[in-house]
């Protein structure tokens, strides 16, 4: 499954998307440093969310088209672990680089330095949850011909709690408050997502394979 890493473009595209949209932002709202600093945590988080979601569509697609997914479903091992591994690979390919890149982008957007570490940790934990939750949406729509917008509609509402606590943590860090509570909630969301989301996604795959 780590073969996914061989396709360089698949890794580069979400990252490039992330950076390009962030570069558009100062063009759109004007380059005033104060304004950018205010918007930075939210914008970085929203962009990370969009980048994760856009790359999610292809999560099961290749395997579905060449029949690997059916073979996986027939394996004696539970489908749960296959989905978990897939989501993990997806996160390593998109979320992790995004989190690693985030301090640089934060610098570009003039985010106060207190926020860097928190931004990194929150993205590190949050994007993993996003990958897991998105797997449910990807599994539900894999049998459809053009899932793009439908996938967004399904997955977006489920992303919201992660987004709230992610941006909340960074905002608290910038304002100089303790932010460990928000990070703990993010970690708890991740734990819940790791336990439950592959279960739901595995169920969704079996439903989609019936189609």
């Amino acid at each position, binding site marked *: 499954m780590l073969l996914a890493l061989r396709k360089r473009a698949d890794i580069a595209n979400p990252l490039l998307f992330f950076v390009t949209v962030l570069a558009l932002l100062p063009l759109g709202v004007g380059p005033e440093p104060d304004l950018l600093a205010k918007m930075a945590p939210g914008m970085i988080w929203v962009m990370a969310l969009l980048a994760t979601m856009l790359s999610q569509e292809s999560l099961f697609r290749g395997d579905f088209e060449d029949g690997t997914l059916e073979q996986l479903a027939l394996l004696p091992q539970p489908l749960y672990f296959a989905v978990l591994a897939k989501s993990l690979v997806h996160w390593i390919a998109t979320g992790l680089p995004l989190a690693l890149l985030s301090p640089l982008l934060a610098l570009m957007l003039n985010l106060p330095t207190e926020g860097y570490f928190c931004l990194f940790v929150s993205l590190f934990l949050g994007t993993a949850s996003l990958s897991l939750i998105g797997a*449910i949406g990807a599994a*539900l*729509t894999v*049998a*459809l011909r053009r*899932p793009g917008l*439908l996938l967004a*509609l*399904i997955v*977006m*509402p*489920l992303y*919201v*709690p992660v987004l709230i606590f992610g941006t909340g943590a960074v905002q608290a860090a910038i304002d100089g408050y303790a932010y460990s509570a928000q990070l703990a909630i993010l970690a708890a969301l991740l734990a819940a997502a790791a336990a439950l989301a592959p279960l*739901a996604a595995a*169920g*969704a795959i079996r*439903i*989609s394979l*019936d*189609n």
Partner: protein
Amino acid sequence: MAWQWFHRLGSPRWFYQKTSGWLPWLALVSIVLLAAGTVWGLGFAPEDAKQGNSYRIIFIHVPAAFLALAGYYIMAISGAIGLIWKMKLSFAVMRAAAPIGAVLTFISLFTGAVWGKPTWGTYWVWDARITSMLILLFLYIGVMALSQAVSREQVADKASALLALVGTVNIPIIYKSVDWWFTLHQPATIRLTESSSIDPSMFYPLLIMIIGFYCLYAWTLLTHTRTLLLRREIRTQWAQQELAGEN
């Protein structure tokens, strides 16, 4: 023996014939309650000390919001029953509940906006409750969109049931949002356990409206489910007979 009703519930035919007797009563009760609640609420309940007459919109806003949330549970639970026991009926209930819930969510958002203009001075704020209600609307729309995108009926049923179940994670967050984040929307005024922070003269008409909305909801849901069932079972003998009998 005790479970017999449950097995019977799996039969669309039994459900259809059983509920046809309830419909007129439910309609009658909901019309009476809604009429009484509206007249009492709009005509006789006292004016609010701060908000004047504009507060009267809560007689629609609050019941609609109540049912928007409760409707999601109904949809998700019937979806779960369908997934577990593979019951045709519960999938039909789930499919019927989605558009009704979406409309109720929209009504509560809309009335909230209309009320917000004179009271808060704005139609829309990104407040915790409003935002989360908007997300609820998107959850409903997502379930509807997914069920329409999948061409095979059975697959569509299962897929949207699963999505509805996953979405229930958000409902407690929406419900508790006003208590957790103290923003512009006031905290819940009606409580079951402690005394409510609303005067009885306003509370009783509101209660009548809430019960009336529940009856109206049940009536709409039953009607919608019955239509869906007829359409799905169109090839069976009983559905043909029902249709022939109604014409």
